[in-house]
């Protein structure tokens, strides 16, 4: 079984089309409605998704881990992480899964920097990315990924059993490569297209990620 886990917070405008488009590529779509104030849960359910609702907003990392827990309970073979705002292209799913199987890796990381399909804002590409890569990701994760903060990932059952996300916020994107390394999982990167509807995370969010990663090291 191939599960798609879609964290969603106030995404009623786009979640319906995202869920419908995913059904052509995965067996089950799990939308984790992360304390939305709008009709995200209703729209996702009408589109055919299994909806898990957080009563309060806990962050993207927490929502993904809820999806993981559900996938573990239902013995999923592969789990896809896919954003609920429609910024990813579903056409990337099948080739990415084929690549993961071919390489016999445990986890696949999507990357918007491996081809030229994504129109990345220059500030993000030229300033935020190098800082994030060399100051945050390499020291904290120990892996050298071209785009660790890309929400497109595919995990095998083995990776799913090893990776338990504890970072509730956006720092989960650094925690996953860190756990990949510490659990000795094999990984591959794959080019994916990212469409920017909004700018995404603000540059200041990076400081919160560093703080969360630092504090997280002191919690058992």
């Amino acid at each position, binding site marked *: 079984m191939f599960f798609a886990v879609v964290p969603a917070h106030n995404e009623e405008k786009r979640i319906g089309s995202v869920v419908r488009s995913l059904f052509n590529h995965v067996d089950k779509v799990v939308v984790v409605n992360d304390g939305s104030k709008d009709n995200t849960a209703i729209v996702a359910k009408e589109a055919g998704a299994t909806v*898990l609702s*957080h009563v309060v907003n806990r962050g993207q990392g*927490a929502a993904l881990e809820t999806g993981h827990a559900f996938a573990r309970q239902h013995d999923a073979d592969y789990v896809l992480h896919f954003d609920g705002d429609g910024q990813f292209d579903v056409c990337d799913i099948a080739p990415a899964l084929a690549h993961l199987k071919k390489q016999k890796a445990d986890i696949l990381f999507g990357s918007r920097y491996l081809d030229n399909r994504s129109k990345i804002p220059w500030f993000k590409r030229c300033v935020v990315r190098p800082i994030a890569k060399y100051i945050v990701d390499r020291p904290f994760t120990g892996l050298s990924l071209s785009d660790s903060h890309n929400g497109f990932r595919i995990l095998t059952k083995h990776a799913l059993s090893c990776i338990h996300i*504890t970072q509730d916020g956006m720092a989960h994107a650094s925690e996953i490569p860190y756990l990949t390394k510490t659990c000795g999982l094999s990984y591959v990167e794959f080019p994916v297209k990212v469409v920017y509807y909004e700018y995404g995370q603000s540059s200041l969010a990076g400081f919160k990620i560093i703080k969360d990663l630092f*504090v997280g090291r002191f*919690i058992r």
Partner: protein
Amino acid sequence: MKTIILFQLFFILFALFAIVSVHKRKKDQSLGTKGAFFWTCFWLCSALFVIWPESTSIVAEKFGLGRGADLILYSSVAIIFFMLFRMHIKIEALNRTITKVTRDTALQKESQKKV
């Protein structure tokens, strides 16, 4: 001089009130033995330093500092930073507990739908 004496009097009363609060908290088990011991010592020492200000200079000299006021300032800043850090860790741990409860509730609701 009168102001200093009045300040000393108020501080001693406040320290006594704080020590009584610490023991009340220890009694209702919202504070552990170590915590109660630390806070009792803290308020006793504070009262001692206020009653006998020169004593800080004696301790400061042993640490290589000139003035007792400097010793109090440096150690206060260090203690406050340490406590802030600990509080931050505790808040983060509490956040994780809230997330766990939220997750379990979400999963439970979904499994109940199927029954």
